[in-house]
């Protein structure tokens, strides 16, 4: 099943790339090759005056050539993309736009931090401590931001906006775990387990197995996602800050893209474990496999539909599986006078909920089912 789903996953990533990527259609193949060639040979890495001058000079030359109007529209091997206009649009819409974003980003973030600083004074003056703390937090987050390295970031959008693998993992969780307790009852093993007096340990082992199963699935699909995306558009600049990618322009986080991947995957694992424990809880309550599977699917479909109405991460564990929303949006909670990111707080809440659910499942299995 994992192999079939793995292939489906690769197909879906390709579909997403075909729909969203600027280089997806056949006519852009030359531009895509030239883009990555220039990056590999000249531009990737630290932003320097030489690199900026190279792009500007090249762009100006192409602009003048186009402006004069006497350029050839025929295929020309000496051109990067094969055509003058192709080279011009490559420099204009790719390199110039992206370098401009990287260079001017400091101004943009300074503007936010400056406004937050003004707000702090305003809220303190009016005795609104909560918003003053919030703005102090915004100020600290957005001040001193710089993008020093320039790397292609097409992969960022493709990776963080991709949620289909989460659906596949949920289906596999249902398949793997919804039958975990009723199967013992139906095969008569439950009587042996209870007679042996090791029901608590068995329940614990089942939960530990569920977590291991989820870890393996997450690792499997994350690796497939990264490999597939890397073949479509090179994954580069993992150590650059998240805001170096245009889609995370206002992201409140200052960590690297690699850290963003890790945090997203941790959040996803917590979401999966929580959903898995809900499924196990249902299976511990129901004695019938068919009823347990049916209920597990109904629960997951309900959660998926519910996530489109309530995007709050505390309201629905499905919202923990949407990588882009977790990293892109600014959302903080004030606890004991300190502002912390909602995602970190949500992670703590989910860990607590998972621990509580573990106890509930054990109690149900040992006492409720034992009778």
């Amino acid at each position, binding site marked *: 099943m994992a192999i079939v789903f793995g292939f489906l996953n690769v197909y879906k990533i390709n579909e997403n790339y075909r729909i969203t990527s600027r280089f997806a259609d056949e006519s852009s193949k030359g531009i895509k090759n030239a883009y990555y060639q220039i990056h590999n040979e000249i531009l990737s890495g630290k932003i320097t005056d030489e690199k900026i001058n190279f792009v500007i000079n090249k762009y100006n030359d192409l602009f003048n050539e186009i402006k004069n109007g006497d350029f050839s529209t025929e295929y020309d091997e000496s051109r990067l993309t094969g055509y003058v206009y192709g080279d011009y649009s490559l420099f204009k819409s790719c390199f110039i736009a992206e370098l401009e974003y990287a260079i001017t980003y400091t101004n943009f973030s300074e503007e936010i931090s400056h406004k937050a600083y003004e707000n702090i004074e305003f809220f303190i003056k009016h005795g609104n401590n909560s918003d003053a703390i919030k703005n102090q937090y915004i100020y600290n987050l957005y001040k001193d931001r710089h993008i020093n390295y320039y790397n292609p970031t097409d992969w960022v959008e493709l990776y963080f906006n991709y949620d289909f693998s989460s659906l596949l993992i949920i*289906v596999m969780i249902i398949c793997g775990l919804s039958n975990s307790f009723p199967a013992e009852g139906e095969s008569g093993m439950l009587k042996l387990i209870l007679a042996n007096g090791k029901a608590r340990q068995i329940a614990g082992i089942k939960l530990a197995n569920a977590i291991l199963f989820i870890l393996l699935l997450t690792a499997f699909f994350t690796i497939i996602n990264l490999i597939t995306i890397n073949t479509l558009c090179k994954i580069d600049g993992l150590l650059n800050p998240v805001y170096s990618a245009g889609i995370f322009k206002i992201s409140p986080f200052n960590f690297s893209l690699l850290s963003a991947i890790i945090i997203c995957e941790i959040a996803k694992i917590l979401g999966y474990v929580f959903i898995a424990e809900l499924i196990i809880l249902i299976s511990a309550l129901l004695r019938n*496999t*068919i009823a347990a599977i049916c209920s597990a699917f109904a629960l997951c479909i309900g959660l998926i539909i519910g996530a489109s109405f309530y995007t709050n991460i505390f309201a629905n564990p499905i919202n923990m599986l949407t990588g882009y929303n977790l990293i892109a949006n600014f959302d903080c909670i004030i606890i004991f006078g300190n502002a912390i990111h909602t995602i970190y707080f949500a992670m703590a809440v989910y860990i607590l909920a998972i621990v509580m659910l573990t106890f509930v499942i054990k109690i149900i299995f040992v006492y409720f089912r034992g009778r």
Partner: protein
Amino acid sequence: MLGYELKKLLFKQYGLILALLFVLIEIITLNFLYSKINFPNMLTKEQYIKYMQIMSGEITEEKKEFILSEQKKILTAQSEFKSLQEKIISGELAYDEYLSKYVMLEPELKKADAFLMASNRFKYAYGDPNRRYIMEKCDGFCRDYPDIPIILFIVSITTVCFLSEENTHMIVLIRSYINGKKKTFVAKLLALMFTIVTMVFIIAIIELIMIYREIGVEAFMYPIQSIEYFSGCKYDMTIFQVFSAIILLRTIGYFFIMFLTIFLCVIVKKPVPVMTIPFAVCLLQQFIFSTADKAYYIPTGFLRASGYFKGDTYNYNTSELVFSAIPTYVLFLMALLIVIIISFVIIIGDKYYNGKNKI
């Protein structure tokens, strides 16, 4: 034999309770899908209903004239109100005089929101007056996804019906008797099909009532193109005809899911894959295709069905083709494919009941 199987499925295996539960879920879901339009206030609602009572149906010269005269009245009132405001700000007008003039304009001004909503319906119909009538929106009818509760019901009762004998080893006894060999499989199939068709029929009646509540009885005979979702539909059909066709196609889709589950029951014989695979197929087909039209080129397209009548659809802003019309032959090819799959499963199922017991 059919009576016994039906009785067993509905009463002993709790099929009836399950059916009632899922009908209740359907009522709640459909009520949510066919929710009424949200109006900013009661006055707008009353006025909108008045407009729609006058305008509903085919576009006529009188209706065009009515819309234009109403537009003129409202625009004149709005412009006079603007000049009144300017005058009171500049001090040219006394407050009492302003009030007396405003009272005269007020009835027309309060119609503005309702008129905008009604004129949008008119504008859409005016785009192709021969094939589009003015009517309320009917968004619930245009859903492009499978009915999950009924699929859950079908997979559950099919699994119960075909797997319980394997789990309790009753299959050994069934195979030992002539009646069991020859008639059980057919009786089970007929009992399941009867249950599914009854369920679909009840839900269709409920949905018809919901549609009636939203668009009224006359609108059932309007051309299907009157609904924006079906604006590109190439068939000359009424709303009621398309509704009936969609229900019929979905029923074929449900039979496909039923036979897929039966196939897994007799081949795999384990409840987890038997239930997970049909659910997964229904769920994943919704998300795997980037453009919805592709989903109609596989048998599960019948579970959605509305897309077969949709026609070419373009993005309003970019003029990009977002849904390509499904050719009629694809509809028949898919139906043929489902018939072949069903025939294949019937042969496999019959062999299962006629097979030798493994000792």
